């Protein structure tokens, strides 16, 4: 019992860590990547494909890098992991743009990230571990499936949106992107690093509220989100529910995995919705 045995110094204060500086650097690199990608995009031809890939890799790689910086308290190991994962993301985006089934390479990202992080027990603090209760994986899938199913039913009943898989290839690519980039980077940063960090200081509800707000900002700024008002309102409701559900799952299971599965299941359902 640490209260009885661990050395205690009442006057000791936390030493400033280089986290803020590293986060700013990662943010700057993200913006730089996006700007560079957009410039290349405007050049047309192969440059367009390369620009889109750089943009995607910069955003999702940046999210993962920021999560690593927070989780590893600015240690240099986070930079090496982030660079390798961002490189893999860039490759996946490029292949996704250049080859019909190239997006399936996104499926390699979760195992790659797990492999890169396996030697860092500190990452357990953000929930990077297998859940002690395997049933929580099923619960995560059920939560995502429920929200996704609900989204489909409500959208089709309320707004007449169609539910259809127009192209199996496009659907599989979109789901692969969610698995290897979208859901992965969002869970890693918003539930993993940010929620876990704030949970230790502000309690569950404070941390869940702020991390949910960050999640909403991230998706509302995403140009891929449909611009119709009802679609944006629905996105706010469902993404907030998904983010809160992810926080609950993270707190209940101790692991990021159930929340990640919930996200994947939700987005898998969302990809079957034909908006407009």
């Amino acid at each position, binding site marked *: 019992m640490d209260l009885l*045995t661990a050395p205690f110094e009442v006057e000791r204060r936390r030493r400033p860590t280089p986290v803020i500086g590293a986060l700013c650097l990662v943010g700057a690199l993200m913006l730089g990547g996006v700007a560079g990608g957009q410039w290349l995009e405007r050049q047309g031809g192969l440059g367009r494909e390369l620009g889109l890939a750089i943009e995607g890799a910069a955003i999702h790689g940046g999210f993962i890098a920021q999560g690593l910086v927070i989780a590893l308290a600015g240690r240099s190991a986070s930079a090496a992991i982030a660079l390798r994962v961002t490189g893999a993301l860039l490759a996946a985006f490029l292949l996704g743009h250049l080859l019909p089934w190239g997006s399936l390479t996104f499926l390699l990202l979760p195992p790659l990230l797990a492999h890169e992080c396996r030697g860092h027990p500190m990452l357990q603090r953000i929930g990077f571990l297998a859940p002690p209760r395997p049933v929580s994986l099923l619960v995560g899938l059920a939560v995502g499936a429920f929200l996704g199913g609900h989204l489909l039913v409500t959208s089709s009943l309320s707004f007449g949106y169609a539910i259809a898989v127009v192209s199996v290839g496009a659907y599989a690519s979109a789901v692969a992107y969610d698995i290897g980039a979208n859901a992965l980077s969002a869970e890693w940063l918003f539930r993993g690093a940010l929620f876990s960090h704030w949970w230790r200081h502000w309690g569950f509800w404070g941390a869940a509220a702020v991390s949910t707000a960050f999640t909403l900002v991230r998706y509302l700024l995403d140009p891929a989100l449909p611009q119709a008002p009802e679609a944006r309102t629905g996105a706010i409701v469902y993404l907030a529910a998904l983010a809160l559900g992810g926080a609950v799952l993270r707190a209940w299971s101790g692991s990021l995995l159930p929340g990640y599965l919930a996200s994947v299941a939700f987005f898998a359902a969302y990809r079957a919705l034909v908006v407009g």
Partner: protein
Amino acid sequence: MSPLRHLYLIPVAWAALRGGARAGGLLGLMAGFFQVPLVLPAIERAGLTGAAVEGLVSLALPPAVGVIAGMLRDESRARARRLAALLEIEQCLAREAPLPVRLDGVAAVVRRGLKAARVGVLVGTTGDAPALGSAPPGARLAPGSAADWSLTTARPVRSADLASDARFTLAGPAAPSPRRGLILPMDAGAGTVGVLALEWQGEVAAGTDAAAAEIALHLALGVENARLTMRQRRFAGELEDKVAAATRRLREIDQAKSEFLSVVSHELRTPLTALEGFAELLLTRAVPPERAARFLRHIHAEARRLGRIVAELLDLSRLEVGVSPDLKREPIDLAAHVERQLELFAGVHPGHRFSWKVEGPLPAIRADRDALDRVLQNLLSNAVKYSPRGGEVRVAARAAADGLVELRVEDEGVGIPARDIPRIFDKYVRIANQETASVRGLGLGLSLVRALVEAHGGRIEVESEAGKGSIFRVILPV
């Protein structure tokens, strides 16, 4: 819109009452979500009509009912659990078991009551090795820890997460959920009696801090009560022992008095019989003058003996009522006085050897001559009586520090067992010994000696070992 939508409230209320706010809220949320496809299309079709508003209300109702009913249920359960825990704590503290075992029981109850991961209960202070109970059991207290600091300073320690709290130095990787820590001094108003240390893993229910403070206060009261009860029990035990000892002593005194009466009767009868016999002979027969003179000497000796017995009895009666002996102090040359008494004793007891030694210059003392005689006679008489196999009786005197004179009488007799030494100066006490069973006496000699010595402002000490002899030291002021 179907009025059956309100049926959602039944499972929500059931979940809230069974599983609390979380279960009620979750099921209520799901019920709300289930109603969304019924409510939103209607709004989309007809706008925000009265029916649509009613639909929105019925959509929000299940989660609200689930959360509120669940919170009420949680609060009520928490109160009941706390009350049960407080009663169980009382039971644990009142058990007949070593303190750490009782504290282990208390820690287990607190752990259950507050849903903590680990609990430690420390009673005592850092100076006197506090008793520790813990759940799970087997915890130890390390110097320099937070509990040690709290015990020393009587101040609480709160930590939202031990792993990210800079004040703690923890070993091993951080857990995936926060580990909350709370240490509360246990103080019922009469000072800190210990500390209650609690660790939680993950989220902690609202109101837990207040419940922990309530339990800490209750524990402090319980520990104080347990201490008082233990003190009371110890006091009652001591009182019982004292009463038993006093009763035993009273019985001994009663028995000694009976024996004393029997001995006194015998001691009085012997000289009286002699007096009566010799007087009758002188009265009834013509006795030649030399025989008559011998009879008269016998009568005189027996009369003196009677007188001594009566004097001792008078002294005894004075002692009984707490009156000090009447002393006529005069300057006495102790060496000459002792030497004279010793000569008399040596003449009467040829079976013993008497030695006398003055160690260094001896000042004269101011004492009652008669009382000093009786002190010496009693000590020498005892030395002879309790040395049935003969041996040497050594008498010595010396000037002691602070204007005192020490007179020492040492024999090689049967000695006194260590357990009997504290009562040899009591009245009527005679120490049983097979070798000296035939020795006659009233059991008053040493109590008289002590009374006489103390009346002179002195004291008497004894050193003895069974089978090896005794040394009596009389210390008198000059």
